[in-house]
């Protein structure tokens, strides 16, 4: 199982005002807001945590078939953080997801997996033949076999990811 979420920081500046009164309280737990406020760039941390929630939600939605807007139920913790890579975990109603977020200029890209070992086995397939099932979940078709992929686009960025099958 895999989920991803890409964010174009420049696009967020046009589309969202994360400083809007009451907004952070509706999206982030108190612990997450402390992580945001203590970071040297609260803006980047807002979108890192948001992309973690979105990437994890994509798997949660595949597993449970439940569709709802549950940012406060997707609880993020950050384990390792440097200026370009942030590793963490998102928990949601007994489910747990490993995440890896890559920062590159205006690009924030989070990948979430169920198994932590899978997080280093990610491919970005080119020329992939993507089909969607009746729930709208995307798959890559390789020699008539369906492999799950996750697709995200925002602003100038588009990312498709899949797990490597050996």
């Amino acid at each position, binding site marked *: 199982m895999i989920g991803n979420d890409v964010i174009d920081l420049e696009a967020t500046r046009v589309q*969202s005002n994360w400083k809007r009164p009451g*907004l952070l309280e509706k999206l982030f737990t108190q612990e997450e807001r402390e992580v945001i406020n203590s970071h040297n760039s609260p803006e980047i941390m807002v979108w890192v945590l948001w992309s973690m929630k979105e990437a994890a939600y994509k798997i949660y939605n595949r597993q449970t078939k439940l569709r709802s807007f549950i940012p406060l139920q997707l609880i993020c913790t950050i384990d390792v953080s440097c200026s370009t890579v942030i590793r963490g975990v998102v928990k949601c109603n007994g489910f747990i997801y490993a995440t890896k977020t890559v920062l590159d200029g205006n690009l924030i890209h989070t990948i979430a997996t169920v198994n932590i070992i899978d997080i280093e086995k990610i491919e970005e397939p080119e020329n992939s033949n993507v089909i969607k099932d009746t729930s709208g979940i995307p798959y890559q078709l390789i020699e008539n076999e369906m492999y799950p992929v996750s697709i995200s686009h925002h602003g100038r960025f588009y990312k498709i990811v899949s797990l490597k099958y050996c």
Partner: protein
Amino acid sequence: MKREEIIEKLKTIVKPYVNNQEAYENMNESSDFIKDLGVNSANLVDIVLDVEEQFNIVIDNPEMERMLDVKTAIDIIEVKTE
């Protein structure tokens, strides 16, 4: 408040966040904010905050969790503005 009044006001609220203009022009109770109107999920919270301000109500978390489509939004607002 009547449902017709609510949907008119809601239409003005969602306008800045819509990415599918055609779906917006045909917006009705069955419209889904994300799937139909193309609202970015990060902007759903803006719709919730705008609804709170414009209708002078408080949307709690379980209500926000359900607010993915126009019908549910109207249901929630209708009860609170009785």
